[in-house]
């Protein structure tokens, strides 16, 4: 696959070493080892209750590991897009004000981030009045303010319809191209994820398998978890790739190449 221009690879931003997390007697994660390199997109897939969110929350430091370790690069800038953010209707909050939490940002920086996230005209709106797609874009804009080295998304497209989440992932991909950050995300929408990711990690309390999207999709561990039904989705995606390949359009299909090869 084509490398990101000017992006040195090989330095890990976060490394989990035999991470084990227990919640009230239940072991949610056991012996998870994972490294996230600069500029790569890593997607964690797994059934409900497989510990995906726990993994992300350990990475940002919201959970203390009960075993193993989480090592972050010193002064790592993380942009976090939470799974869902319930904003209490009693809390008045404009999009612009939301972006200045907790660190005040200039109007220029705020509109830049909104533009980058595809939410350019929303600054004056109330957070509680946004649609699902608009809300996620605002969350993305907020995560971009810190000029993150690592963007973390927790089921960021939950509640969006199919075109909505596809558009959102395209936005993420575009953002990654622009600022060259690594992306760590958790998702259910396997075919969209597969297309965009450098590496897929299949999680069910422990890492069942990991690797390039194509490798994981055909791994027996993955099939045992998700069945073969997703093959259809992957095929659908492949079809799109072949199609675009035929008429030599200018935009980048690099990542899709990898998935299909």
């Amino acid at each position, binding site marked *: 696959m084509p490398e990101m221009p000017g992006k040195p690879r090989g330095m890990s931003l976060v490394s989990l070493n035999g991470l084990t997390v227990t919640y009230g007697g239940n072991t949610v994660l056991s012996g998870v080892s994972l490294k996230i390199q600069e500029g790569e997109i890593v997607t964690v897939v797994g059934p409900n209750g497989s510990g995906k969110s726990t993994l992300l929350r350990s990475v940002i430091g*919201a959970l203390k590991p009960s075993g193993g370790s989480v090592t972050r690069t010193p002064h790592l800038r*993380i942009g976090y897009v*939470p799974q869902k953010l319930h904003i209490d209707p009693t*809390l*008045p909050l404009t999009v612009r004000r939301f972006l200045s939490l907790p660190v005040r940002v200039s109007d220029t920086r705020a509109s830049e981030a909104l533009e980058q996230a595809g939410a350019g005209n929303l600054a004056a709106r109330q957070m509680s009045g946004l649609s699902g797609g608009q809300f996620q874009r605002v969350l993305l804009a907020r995560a971009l303010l810190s000029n993150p080295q690592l963007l*973390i998304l927790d089921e960021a497209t939950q509640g969006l319809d199919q075109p909505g989440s596809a558009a959102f992932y395209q936005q993420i991909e575009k953002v990654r191209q622009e600022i060259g950050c690594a992306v760590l995300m958790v998702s259910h929408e396997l075919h969209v994820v597969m297309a965009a990711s450098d590496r897929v990690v299949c999680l069910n309390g422990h890492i069942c398998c990991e690797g390039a999207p194509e490798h994981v999709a055909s791994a027996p561990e993955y099939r045992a978890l998700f069945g073969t039904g997703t093959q259809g989705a992957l095929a659908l995606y492949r079809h799109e790739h072949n199609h675009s390949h035929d008429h030599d359009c200018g935009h980048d299909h690099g990542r899709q190449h990898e998935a299909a090869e």
Partner: protein
Amino acid sequence: MTLLDDFLIRAALAGIGVALAAAPLGCFVVWRRMAYFGDATAHASILGVALALSFDVSIFAGVLATALAMATTVSALAGRGYAMDTLLGVLAHSSLAFGLVAVSFLSGVRIDLMAYLFGDILAVGRGDLAVIWGGAALVLALLWWRWSALLTATLNPDLAHAAGIDPRREQMVLTLALALVVAVAIKVVGVLLIAAMLLIPAAAARPFAATPERMAAIAALLGMLAASGGLQLAFVFDTPAGPSIVCLAAALFAASSAAGVVLQSHRR
């Protein structure tokens, strides 16, 4: 300082001081759905009054200590198999009951229980004023200092973590501010009505605010209006002062809700 010789002026200043601190803090109580938490902390303070009287320490210190103890107990017990509202209900009412029983053990001390339950704003002295304004200033300073972190933690604990803010610490800041407000407000509105001074101005401010800061400012204004206006009403109609303040606050809330409905339909 001849001005402060007038008990009505002292009472008005006391009420305004409490409202000034209680209303912005009340916004957090509203946003975080901590209404019962505020209630429980306030109710526990009657136990603090009893303890302060029996150990001969200042009421302010006794109330502050029990309110803090109450709040930390609730935080510690939360999520251990009881729903929050059950836990708060148990603790609030039992501490009120224990407080009332403890007060009855105090022989030789003549205390007017009503003054602590419903406040005794007309008896506010210069020393009380100093405590009230000192406490209010401390609460406002705390909120000012932690404002952004508090808002972020209120919005979402994980967002706070990602920004390097410890939500539990912010919770402790709010707990401390709440205990302070309870301790200074007990003289003004009494333990049973403190939660009203927290909640009602904040709720009344909601329809007119587009940002959290504006909501806190409007709540403070409405709170001060309720405190001074309620006192005047109490003087004119010869009604109990603390409840009159809360009645006026409630009337402001009703008016603002109605105005909010009109605003909403205009926007559509």
